[in-house]
């Protein structure tokens, strides 16, 4: 497959990258790992005149954990380094699980979490986990830095809340308390190299009596972007988590999604799998206590 012609630029700093983004505007595309972008270019979906390759920017591939501030993952941190990180596995297991499900070892050695988020696929595994952990994105542009909660980042199908010249520089997950546990499950045909038919992340908070005081459930691959399901969440709050309650939450989650039919599954099947995987994800999170 022949790649369209383009100019490859490799800035040495975020500031320089933003300068290039301002200079070239719509003609340019940012590239971290490129494992989505290069396919779009080969398929003729995108033909940027300029590619701003970010990988030579130093210091943006860190994973930093602080008990008060939480977890900060740089925009160039590779997916494989996230799933292998002890602080991630210990404190944010649903993120480690979601990242591990992405594509293959080779892709995760090149692709980044920020790239997965900015590619904005409705089935992106990592995004559901970021939703329930209440992640936020730090973005930098010509006018400085600002923080965007992940829930506000998607404004439509593949439409990001980034202004011209802005780029994501890191993703932050707030600290997880002792009484909060989360899990991510995806329904796939293969264990690798497969997109989720349905992906569900659930985080539940229990008080000392085992009663749920807060719940966050995010659904992937069943709407134009990842969505929370307030109806299912409200079922859990004020109750003990049992298989019966989890099933009721699953039935409510079905009302909060609008899946499509495609090559992987019909809309009807996805609807039903939202019920099943919401139930399983809630119970998997509860099992972690």
């Amino acid at each position, binding site marked *: 497959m022949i790649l369209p*012609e383009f100019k*490859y630029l490799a800035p040495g700093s975020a500031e320089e990258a933003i300068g290039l983004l301002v200079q070239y505007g719509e003609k340019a595309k940012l590239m971290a790992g*490129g*494992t989505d972008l290069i396919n779009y270019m080969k398929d003729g979906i995108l033909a940027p005149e300029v*590619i701003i390759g970010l990988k030579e920017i130093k210091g943006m591939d860190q994973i930093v954990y602080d008990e008060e501030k939480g977890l900060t993952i740089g925009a160039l941190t590779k997916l494989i380094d996230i799933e292998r990180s002890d602080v991630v596995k210990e404190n944010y297991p649903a993120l480690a699980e979601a990242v591990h499900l992405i594509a293959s070892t080779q892709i995760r050695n090149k692709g980044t979490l920020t790239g997965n988020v900015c590619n904005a696929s409705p089935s992106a595994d990592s995004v559901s986990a970021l939703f329930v952990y209440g992640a936020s994105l730090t973005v930098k542009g010509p006018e400085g830095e600002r923080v965007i909660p992940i829930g506000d980042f998607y404004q439509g199908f593949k439409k990001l809340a980034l202004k011209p010249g802005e780029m994501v520089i890191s993703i932050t997950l707030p600290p997880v308390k002792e009484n909060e546990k989360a899990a991510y499950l995806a329904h796939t045909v293969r*264990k690798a190299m497969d997109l989720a038919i349905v992906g569900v992340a659930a985080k539940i908070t229990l008080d000392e009596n085992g009663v749920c005081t807060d719940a966050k459930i995010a659904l992937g691959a069943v709407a134009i972007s990842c969505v929370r399901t307030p109806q299912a969440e409200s079922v859990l709050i004020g109750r003990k988590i049992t298989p019966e309650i989890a099933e009721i939450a699953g039935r409510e989650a079905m009302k909060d999604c609008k899946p499509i039919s495609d090559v992987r599954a019909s809309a009807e099947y996805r609807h039903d799998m939202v019920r099943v995987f919401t139930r399983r994800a809630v119970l998997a999170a509860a099992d972690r206590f």
Partner: protein
Amino acid sequence: MSKRIISFVLNGDPTDAVIEDNMSLLDFIRDTLGLTGTKKGCEQGECGACTVMLDGRPINSCMAFAAEIEGHELTTIEGIAKGGQLSVVQKKFIEKWALQCGFCTPGMIMSATALLSVNPDPTEEEIRVAIEGNLCRCTGYAKIVEAIGEAAKAIREVQ
């Protein structure tokens, strides 16, 4: 057409080469460097036949630009044997009959070598995960997994 000269380390040797910006790393390796051990399969990052190591990490060379390797270390299947001696992984693939048509083999060996460099004692599950992005259409996975496990064992015994 945007052409440039890049400097990188190829299988341990400092190398300069002329590239075009819109050249995939895979086409650069096969057509410019003439190293055809790296195979071209799906060109979409699905099959793993084009797996190489960049700074020791296994990646799909079809999912990278040649321009990205400027200043980095590239290892291809041709860099695995040292001084005319096959590596332990290569020897075990032969001993265990872990290949039939052989098209996936260079990619499998790159993935296996990368795994053993970071994890000298992998479980069977870890071996399977390491080659999850490598398709073998002869479906000889059992022998491949066995060969990688045997190679790990042999390397540990030597050390």
